[in-house]
């Protein structure tokens, strides 16, 4: 069933388009040689070009162009061999030149698409309209002084990729899935770290509502939403607001709004002026950006395997379910880790260990796969010990906990703790005989038909063997002993 807002006049469809601003991973800024590191002391990463001093001029950073092209390729998008920069003119405290260098008429990347997966297992394509390069603005701090705002231009001039989706999104869930997928692709490519908390990825959310089958109605833009959770909440809040306006007989006005997450509502932005007349015109300090076909082809050939392709390969070669494969490929580091573990082992078992025990341990320890206390190789060795029956699956979990704590390799832990599985049939026979002898009454009950008691006997044998009995052998031996007509 598709998502809808239930209003007093019926069901309303939600139409969403996302404009994502993704900070490009590069050492220097888009048009200046200042650094881009996050969190530097104020105005220490600012050149005179960034501060728009008189006579300063932009020079484009090749790496930023490369990153934009690679991102376009990763979004299955058309790369424009000739693109152009334009000035977007407006006045704001964090925009030193009074204009932003952006791309308006001729962006570097054109149409593409992104496949998203939803919770019910279905997939949808979300269209990409375009991707262009532009400068980020500086930062204003409004809470340092009662009557003054403080301006830090460190971020001014950092390269941004603005990625615009088609208005194909129809629910908060789809928006979340799209953002997750987009972030995953950007991280795989290494073109943006997708860190919404630090502001290296921000979303402007365009929301409108309509009854099914109607043409599009007026949309509003909710600006600078900085977490996926807030995006989904903002969509719901804004869609509900718009439905209320329409149903009350009013008309939604096109405007820019902010999401107040504490109150769960959107409100109109006061400072951005009414009519945004940006007076775009071609940037006269730059020439057209011309790309070389061979260079683009080479970039394409050197792209890493991206999430969708990797997922398909995992499903095909490792015979994993779409769900498991999806979980494993969300982060490239996880996928790589998994493949190391899976080498020479049962793929499904490996998947269970990674997505189950490993993820749980990482969560508890507050770590990521990149700084996992258990390396992929170590985990693989643990799986070896299970596969060759040195230990049982259950004992392996105990060993794993010890690996997480100590960082030691599994074999040493098994030896140190004496956890080696016992497969010596003599010892098992002895344990079985001992247990049956000590529980003669229960043996009689079992033989009389109380089959459930089998589990009891297994437990007792395991207890007698300090858990180290090979479960399969224990079962076999018990069964034989209990069916022996004696």
């Amino acid at each position: 069933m598709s998502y809808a807002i239930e209003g007093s006049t019926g069901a309303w469809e939600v139409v969403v388009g996302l404009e994502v601003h993704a900070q490009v991973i590069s050492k220097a800024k888009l048009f200046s040689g200042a650094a881009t590191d996050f969190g530097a002391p104020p105005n220490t990463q600012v050149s005179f070009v960034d501060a728009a001093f008189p006579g300063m001029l932009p020079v484009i950073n090749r790496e930023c162009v490369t990153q934009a092209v690679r991102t376009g390729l990763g979004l299955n998008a058309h790369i424009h061999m000739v693109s152009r920069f334009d000035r977007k003119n407006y006045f704001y405290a964090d925009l030193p030149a009074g204009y932003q260098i952006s791309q308006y008429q001729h962006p570097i990347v054109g149409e593409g698409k992104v496949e998203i997966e939803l919770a019910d297992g279905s997939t949808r394509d979300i269209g990409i309209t375009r991707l262009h390069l532009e400068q980020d603005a500086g930062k204003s701090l409004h809470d340092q002084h009662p009557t003054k705002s403080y301006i830090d231009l460190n971020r001014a001039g950092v390269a941004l990729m603005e990625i615009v989706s088609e208005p194909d999104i129809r629910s908060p869930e789809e928006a979340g899935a799209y953002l997750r997928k987009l972030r995953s692709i950007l991280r795989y490519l290494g073109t943006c770290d997708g860190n919404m908390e630090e502001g290296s990825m921000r979303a402007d959310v365009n929301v409108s509502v309509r009854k099914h089958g109607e043409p599009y109605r007026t949309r509003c833009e909710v600006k600078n939403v900085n977490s996926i959770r807030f995006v989904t909440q903002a969509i719901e809040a804004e869609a509900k607001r718009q439905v209320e306006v329409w149903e009350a007989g009013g008309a939604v006005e096109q405007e820019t709004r902010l999401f107040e997450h504490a109150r769960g509502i959107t409100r109109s932005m006061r400072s951005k002026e009414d009519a945004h007349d940006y007076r775009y015109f071609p940037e006269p300090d730059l020439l057209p950006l011309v790309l070389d076909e061979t260079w683009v082809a080479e970039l394409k050939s050197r792209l890493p395997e991206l999430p969708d392709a990797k997922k398909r390969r995992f499903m095909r070669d490792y015979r994993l379910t779409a769900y498991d494969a999806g979980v494993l490929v969300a982060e490239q580091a996880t996928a790589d880790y998994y493949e190391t573990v899976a080498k020479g082992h049962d793929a499904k078992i490996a998947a269970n260990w990674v997505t189950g025990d490993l993820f749980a341990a990482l969560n508890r320890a507050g770590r990521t796969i990149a700084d996992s206390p258990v390396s992929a190789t170590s985990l693989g060795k643990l799986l070896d010990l299970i596969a060759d029956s040195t230990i049982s699956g259950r004992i392996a979990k105990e060993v794993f906990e010890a690996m997480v704590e100590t960082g030691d390799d599994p074999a040493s832990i098994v030896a140190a703790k004496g956890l080696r599985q016992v497969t010596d049939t003599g010892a098992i026979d002895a344990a079985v005989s001992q247990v049956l002898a000590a529980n003669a009454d229960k043996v009689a009950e079992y033989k009389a038909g109380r089959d459930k008691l089998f589990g009891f006997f297994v437990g007792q044998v395991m207890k007698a063997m300090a858990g180290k009995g090979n479960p399969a052998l224990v079962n076999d031996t018990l069964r034989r002993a209990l069916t022996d007509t004696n």
Partner: protein
Amino acid sequence: MSLTDLTIAAARDALRAHEFTARELTEAHLAAIDALNPRLNAFITVTGERALAQADTADAALVRGEFAPLTGIPLAIKDLFCTEGVRTTAGSRILGPFVPPYESTVSANLLRDGAIFLGKANMDEFAMGSSNMTSAYGPVTNPWQRRQDTTAALVPGGSSGGSASAVSARLAMGATGTDTGGSIRQPASFCGIVGMKPTYGRCSRWGVVAFASSLDHPGPFARTVQDCAILLGSMAGHDPKDSTSADIPVPDYAAACARSVKGMRIGVPREYRVDGMQGEIESLWQQGLTWLRDAGAEVVDVSLPHTKYALPAYYIVAPAEASSNLARYDGVRFGLRENGKDLRDLYERTRAAGFGAEVRRRILIGTYVLSAGYYDAYYIRAQKVRALILRDFTEAFAHVDALVAPTAPSAAFAQGENMDDPVQMYLNDVFTGPADLAGVPAISVPAGLDANGLPLGLQVIGKPFDEETLFAVAAALERAAEFDALPQIRAGG
């Protein structure tokens, strides 16, 4: 001959021959400035101490037998070029006490080649003007006076009025200027000196306060064609900090001055003959063509059909770019600040107080022609007309090596004239504007005097990056013209 009458070429030779010191040369110019700047107002800032220190350094080098192309030569720098540690105003109040922490590439090149900076030359505010009447630091006076009325102070032309006046009055041996609609050539013509606008991208714009980015051309002023060539040789060159800078080697411009014009084809653009043009200008033009024929060149009629549309197109494109370039003057990071009740008020009051009337007019026109609904009708149309103007030149240059035309439609006028209607002032650039729009190089050479005894210049326009042909033709005109008249207000005069 007084030290201040020397050409750069002659002074160079004399310095190297130790006939006098760089310090003596600089002191002579500083004394001239002291005596005459109060009247001419050619300089906004005089950097006497610095100049003497630079002269001493030059002398030390000369003593060691080391010399760069301009060692010891004192120059004026138009106050549009950012000079490190020296206040830079762009002729405006809005820059306030701004002292640039960097040196423009062009002025850095001159320093690299040993030049001495006497000070920052006055100019029309933000390079917008043709008379140097819009400067926030007062008008500049032309060292030339009308024969029969020496009481009227005349304009030196603009926007590089201070540079032209200084060189003409012998307060400096040469100067830098910028030409966006004619701001080097027209003042050169009004002041009886040589002024050159090279090809767009030939000289770097980095560190030059931007007026109209696609039209600004830094270039030299001097009293002879050869001196101009010497200056351009130092000023020009690729600058990786300017994305529009041409990556083309700098040839020996000074040597090109000696090239013969024999066999060259000189085009005469018929559309440069306008109604109401001063009669003497038409005769001087014809005289110039005769001189070139006598030197062995062939003179050919050409047509540049879109010439008259150049100025209207210019007055859309230049203000549009300026409206954006001047948005950074907002009272936040440097310059003048007028306090306001909120940020928007601060911007509005700072800019109202800091910008003069002409600058404000152009920013408003520029904002208007870029605004929603008007962009296609004005800006795009103007850029298309610009393409046609370039095409006119390109087609003409398929058949000729250079064009010769008047530089300005009149000689220098009096301060206060042409101020009633902005358009009247704009028409001063009718012959110079097209070359800015097309980006082709052009030079003005003093060729004669009008009935009032005021200088008139002739303009040579050339192919992109063919400044050498320009210098050759200009030098030929200079030789034939034998222009030796002197302005009334001058050093040692």
